[in-house]
């Protein structure tokens, strides 16, 4: 139905010829825009409601009784549904560690939370299909679990800033919203989030439509195509210091994929941008000593590179 509507608008109202570059590009743009925004509204709304049942205080309670492995898996999963903003990273980290959540499990959470979220899922789903969306979520989870277990095994507890172990954490009851309030909150949250991300989404779709209609593609393939064994680590190295949320990376991801960069390399780049960044390092320096900070970045980056190679090999 959306497809028909888009085609009607472009070929009847705008009176463009089907089959021309301009006509096809605009058709693609209108269709994708409607599809992605409908998906975004529906999914962000429902995720906001689900999230309201998993405030970080509750996630901490669940994780504080868990050990390695199971704990890492659970932390990765909870990272997807627990709302997280990088400005909360410090209180969150302290609260987790103080209440006895193992360090490696805490890191699994800290990795998955910014990297996997509903916006990334929707955009990948809408623009690249179910397979790629699920691969992103699955491997993102895998990266968070493996990196968390590795940090746990290295026994890095003494490289957490000393003051954290002397911290007294209060136990305030955070008031729970009633269901009606949750609905209102989810509605406002959806509106606010869309207000913030819509330009990126439009640019992302526009870039995709433009490439769809015009660019024959091969420029990047020459440098970052399947034949270059260093493409994945280079993409990750470029992505690590950069900071953006998932929505912001989509225009770049669209452009890179449209120009023929292989999917593993592109997803690795997207993960590196969303999971690790220079501002995040500055924030985490408050709670980690330099050595652990470097190890954290190193392990996550290495895991992302491995995932990139894996994708390129199997797809």
């Amino acid at each position: 139905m959306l497809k028909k509507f888009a085609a009607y608008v472009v070929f009847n109202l705008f009176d463009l010829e089907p089959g021309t570059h301009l006509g096809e590009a605009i058709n693609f743009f209108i269709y994708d825009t409607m599809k992605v925004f409908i998906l975004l509204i529906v999914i962000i709304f429902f995720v906001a409601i689900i999230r309201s049942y998993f405030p970080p205080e509750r996630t901490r309670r669940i994780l504080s009784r868990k050990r390695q492995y199971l704990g890492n898996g659970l932390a990765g999963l909870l990272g997807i549904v627990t709302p997280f903003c990088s400005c909360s990273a410090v209180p969150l980290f302290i609260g987790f560690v103080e209440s006895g959540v193992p360090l490696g499990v805490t890191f699994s959470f800290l990795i998955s939370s910014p990297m996997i979220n509903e916006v990334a899922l929707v955009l990948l789903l809408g623009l690249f299909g179910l397979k790629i969306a699920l691969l992103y979520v699955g491997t993102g989870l895998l990266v968070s679990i493996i990196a968390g277990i590795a940090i746990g095994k290295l026994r890095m507890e003494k490289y957490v800033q000393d003051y954290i172990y002397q911290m007294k954490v209060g136990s305030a009851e955070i008031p729970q919203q009633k269901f009606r309030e949750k609905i209102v909150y989810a509605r406002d949250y959806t509106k606010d989030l869309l207000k913030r991300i819509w330009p990126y989404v439009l640019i992302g779709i526009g870039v995709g439509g433009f490439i769809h209609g015009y660019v024959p593609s091969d420029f990047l393939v020459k440098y970052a195509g399947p034949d270059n064994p260093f493409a994945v680590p280079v993409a990750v190295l470029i992505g690590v210091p950069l900071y953006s949320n998932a929505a912001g990376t989509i225009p770049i991801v669209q452009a890179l994929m449209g120009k023929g960069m292989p999917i593993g390399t592109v997803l690795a780049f997207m993960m590196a941008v969303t999971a690790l960044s220079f501002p995040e390092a500055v924030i985490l320096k408050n709670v980690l000593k330099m050595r652990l900070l470097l190890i954290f970045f190193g392990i996550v980056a290495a895991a992302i590179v491995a995932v990139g190679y894996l994708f390129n090999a199997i797809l």
Partner: protein
Amino acid sequence: MKIEILGMGCANCNKLYENALEAVKLSGKEVEVAKVEDIKKIMGYGVLSTPALVIDGVVKVAGKIPKVEEIKGWIK
């Protein structure tokens, strides 16, 4: 009565601070609004997500930004 805004100085914390000031102004009451940026004090309230809003020592909301109207409702 005293309102405290917990948060280590992020954009969302400033937004909440402004909302609180606005709510106090609209209520016409004498209420002190203070920012709490010291992590030790923030953790003392048991808050894991910032920004958070505390009224007379009681955490009202954490991890989101309540609207001016909502905050006004809490001011007695």
